[in-house]
C-alpha cells in the first residue's frame, strides 16, 4: 500500500503541476474561454455532458470504432508484416505500395472515406484500421527479421515444424518489437476515430454542444 502510494505520488504531482500551469497560462495570458478554457471549465463541461447523458452514446460509438478498426488493422498488419519478413518476393512486390501508402496522410483520406463508405461506422473503422496497419506491419516485419538466426538454427536442430518455429521462436522473438508497433498503433487508432467522426460534418473541429449522430 505504502509502495503503491510512493509509486503513484510522482504521477499525481506531475498531473497537478500540469493543471496549475494550464490555469496560470489562462490567468496570466487572459485568454477568453473559446481560445483556451481554464481546466475547471472543461471539467465542468465534461461532467455536465456526462450527467445529461449526451456523451455516453458517443463514447460507446467511438470506442467500438476504435476497437473494431484496431482489431482488423492489426490482424492484417501481423499477417502482412510476417509475410514481408519471410518472403523476398512479397517484399519486392508490395513494398513500393506500402511506402507510397504510408507517405499518404491517411487522415487526409477521411473525407473521401466518408464519400465512399458513408458517414457511418464503416468509414471510421476503415480509417482506424488503415492508421493502425502501418506501424504494426512495419514493427512486425522488423521484429520477425530480427529474430536471432542462431535460435532458429536451434529450432531446426531439434526438428521444430514450421508451425512450431512460428509459435515457439518467431512470435516470442518478435514480440517486443510487435508490442512497440501496437503501442503506437493503439494511440493512432483513437486519433483515427476522432478525425473520422469530425469528417462527418466536413468540419475539422467537432464541438461538444452540437454532437452529430453516431
Amino acid at each position, binding site marked *: 500500500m505504502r509502495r503503491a502510494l510512493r509509486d503513484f505520488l510522482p504521477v499525481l504531482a506531475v498531473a497537478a503541476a500540469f493543471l496549475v500551469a494550464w490555469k496560470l497560462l489562462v490567468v496570466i495570458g487572459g485568454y477568453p474561454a473559446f481560445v483556451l478554457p481554464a481546466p475547471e471549465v472543461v471539467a465542468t463541461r465534461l461532467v455536465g455532458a456526462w450527467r445529461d447523458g449526451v456523451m455516453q452514446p458517443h463514447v460507446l460509438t467511438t470506442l467500438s470504432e476504435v476497437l473494431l478498426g484496431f482489431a482488423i488493422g492489426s490482424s492484417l498488419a501481423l499477417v502482412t508484416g510476417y509475410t514481408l519478413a519471410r518472403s523476398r518476393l512479397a517484399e519486392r512486390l508490395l513494398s513500393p505500395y506500402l511506402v507510397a501508402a504510408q507517405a499518404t496522410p491517411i487522415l487526409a483520406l477521411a473525407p473521401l472515406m466518408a464519400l465512399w463508405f458513408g458517414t457511418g461506422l464503416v468509414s471510421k473503422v476503415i480509417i482506424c484500421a488503415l492508421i493502425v496497419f502501418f506501424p504494426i506491419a512495419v514493427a512486425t516485419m522488423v521484429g520477425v527479421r530480427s529474430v536471432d538466426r*542462431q535460435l532458429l*538454427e536451434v529450432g*531446426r536442430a531439434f*526438428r521444430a515444424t514450421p508451425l512450431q518455429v512460428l509459435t*515457439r521462436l518467431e512470435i516470442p522473438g518478435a514480440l517486443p518489437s510487435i508490442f512497440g508497433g501496437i503501442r503506437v498503433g493503439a494511440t493512432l487508432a483513437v486519433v483515427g476515430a476522432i478525425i473520422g467522426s469530425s469528417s462527418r460534418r466536413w468540419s475539422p473541429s467537432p464541438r461538444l454542444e452540437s454532437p452529430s449522430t453516431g
Partner: protein
Amino acid sequence: MRSFGTNATHTGGSAIKAPRTAVLARPARDRRAPAIEVRHLAFTYPGDPPRPALDDVSLEVASGELVAVIGANGTGKSTLLKLVGGLLEARSGEVAVLGRAVREPDARVGFVFQEPRLLPWRTTLENVAFPLELAGRPRPERDGRARDLLALVGAADVGGLRPHQLSGGTRQRAAIARALALDPGILLLDEPFSALDALTRERFNVVLQSIWRSTQTTILLVTHSIPEAIFLADRVLVLAGRPGRVVTEVPIRLPRPRTLADQDATMVSEAASRIRAALGAPPDPARPAGEVM
C-alpha cells in the same frame, strides 16, 4: 547420477570415485556400421566471394566412440559438425549417421552449439524441456525429465531462472542438458566448454566422461584444448588449413575412466606433441603437455 557439483573445492582429480580397471583402452567395440561416416566431404559457403570451409574430409566414428576434432580458428570445425548434424546440406561428398544419409537434423542426434543459444524468454527448465516439447511429449513428462537432466549437469537449482540470470558456465550446462533431452545416440559438441574457467572445465570433462560412459552415446567433440582432447577422446582428429582438412589422427590409448592425473603420463605428452606438430605449432619439449591450452 553423478553431478557437476558446483561447489566442489577440489579440482576434478578426486571427483572420480569409480574403480579403475586395469585394462588399457575400452574393450574393442563391435564393428557394426559406424555411427558417423563422412566421405570426401567438401563444403563452401556460397556468397561473393564463396568461402571454402572444408576440403575432402573423411572420417568415421564407431558406435560408442568419443572422437575429438581439434584445429585452429576457421578450419571448418563448426561447419563439419553442422554438416554431420544436418544443419548444412552436404553438396559434395557423403555424410551418414547411424547408417542413413543425412538430409536434415536427425532425432537421434543431440547438438550443443558453440554458444549456449538458450531462448531468452524461457526459464532454464523450459529451455531444457524445449526439444521434448517440440517432440510432443506431455507436460509432466517433460518437466520431470528436464529436472533430472538439470540435476545431471549440476544445475538443479537454476530451473526457474532465465538464461540472462545464469553464469556463462551454467548456461552451457543447460545447453548440454537440452542436447541430452531426447536421449540421443549421438552427441555433437561444438566447443561446449570454451566459456568455462580452467578448473570448472576440468570438472566438466570428468563429468562428460561419466555421462558418456553411462549413456553409451557416440560423441564427436570439437575443442581447442589439447589436454581436453586427450583427456576425453579415443582418437583426436587434427583439422588444418583453409579450407580445412584432416591432417593427422592421433589415437589416445589411455585407460578408462581417466583421471586428471593421467595428464602427466608420457603417453599424454607424446600425443600432445604430435597434435601440436600437426596443428603447425613448433614442438616445445620444455613445456609439460598438460598445461598447453
